[in-house]
């Protein structure tokens, strides 16, 4: 049986907006991850009503028949994590086609859900407490991959999710991401390849020399290179300056307001994608783009063991840390030495 997530019930003291969207309405009660208190939500802006939400949460496992029932699935954050969940949602929906699935994640990850099928309703976090009553069951994947201290093992993430769901003997086809069928967008620059130079956490960034060598080599082979990255990423300023004389552009140049959905249309037109262990390492294979992904801090098989269209280079460092949160390598070295891959290894795959 899945567990009750570590959420607290809060009451908003004031109305809170982000980009004109109301996140908290004054006086309303919401469920938020405990970690949001004092971090995302000032303790003086909300009042904690209840520390334990056990009586509000009806845990689900796959043995419960969902025919004509509704289920709220929750995993709060991580762009890649949203892609992982796509497989689990497909598994549930294929087993119980008449069920209605609500998906709950932090409001800032909602844009990527446009890509993911089998979601009937998006329920952004903070979740209005009254919304829980709209679902027969609730399913949280909060501590499935990492434990409460944020530590991970080399266990495949999909297998960890199915353990939480209580599903055994799940076919391999449900252990890879699924996205909606989207049309490729031709940017009118001839053959293109993509690269995601920066991960969400700097510890998994591609080393700068590798990025430059890749762009130069692909330019030499007649490809235009698109860098897939967030428009507001400050590390990009320096990188763009270094590559300004090369045949390269950024994905957000082809999208409205840096929408990730538009970036995915551009990605679909790419022949190859080079990426670290980050969102596009999952989106690329799901879109059928031949993807080379580089893994250092985490084992490749913990992510892409069942993927198609994917070649992962796992550097298997002696210091494998399995860390997200320190931001940089625990040895204080940037870029992380474990991401330092021989460029020829990448080109051998492409050749």
């Amino acid at each position, binding site marked *: 049986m899945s567990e009750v997530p570590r959420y607290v019930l809060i009451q908003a003291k004031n109305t809170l907006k*982000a980009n004109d969207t109301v996140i908290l309405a004054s006086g309303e009660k919401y469920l938020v991850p405990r970690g949001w208190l004092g971090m995302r939500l*000032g303790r003086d802006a909300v009042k904690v009503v209840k520390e334990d939400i056990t009586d509000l949460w009806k845990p689900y496992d796959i043995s419960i028949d969902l025919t004509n029932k509704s289920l709220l699935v929750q995993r709060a954050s991580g762009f890649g994590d949203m892609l992982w969940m796509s497989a689990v949602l497909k598994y549930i929906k294929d087993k119980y086609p008449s069920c209605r699935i609500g998906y709950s994640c932090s409001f800032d990850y909602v844009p990527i859900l446009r890509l993911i099928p089998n979601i009937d309703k998006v329920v952004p976090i903070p979740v209005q407490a009254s919304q829980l009553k709209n679902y027969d069951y609730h399913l949280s994947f909060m501590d499935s991959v990492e434990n409460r201290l944020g530590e991970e093992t080399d266990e495949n993430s999909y297998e960890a999710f199915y353990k939480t769901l209580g599903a055994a003997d799940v076919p391999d086809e449900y252990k890879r991401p699924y996205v909606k069928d989207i049309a490729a967008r031709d940017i009118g620059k001839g053959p293109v390849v993509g690269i995601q130079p920066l991960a969400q956490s700097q510890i998994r960034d591609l080393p700068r020399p590798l990025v430059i060598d890749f762009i130069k080599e692909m330019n030499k082979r007649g490809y235009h290179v698109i860098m897939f990255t967030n428009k507001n990423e400050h590390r990009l300023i320096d990188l763009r300056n270094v590559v300004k004389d090369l045949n390269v552009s950024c994905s957000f140049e082809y999208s409205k307001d840096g929408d990730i959905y538009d970036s995915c249309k551009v990605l679909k037109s790419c022949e190859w994608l080079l990426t670290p262990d980050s969102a596009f390492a999952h989106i690329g294979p799901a879109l059928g783009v031949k993807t080379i992904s580089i893994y250092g801090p985490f084992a490749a098989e913990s992510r892409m063991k069942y993927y198609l269209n994917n070649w992962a*280079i796992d550097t298997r460092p*002696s210091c494998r840390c399995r860390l997200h949160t*320190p*931001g940089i390598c625990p040895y204080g070295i940037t870029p992380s030495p474990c991401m330092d891959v021989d460029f020829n290894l990448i080109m051998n795959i492409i050749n």
Partner: protein
Amino acid sequence: MFITKGPKQEKAENSPALQKQNEELLLRVMNLEKIIMEKFGMTIKELSFRYNTVKLDAIINSFEHEKQEVEIKLDPIVVTNERSS
């Protein structure tokens, strides 16, 4: 990320004594930063980056690591479900 502030703090909390305490705390932090920057040859930018991303104990540990000779061995392999043509 966003942090909100509620209504203004009560008057008692804005007392000169509390303000003085805050100023003293700030001075102590600034001194500590100065010592760390000098000892490890860091800029304020590098230091704030570590503050923002690493817990205090991890910061201290990362300095310990830097004192040692770091030898990281890599053993790269290619993992794929695709057949080579």
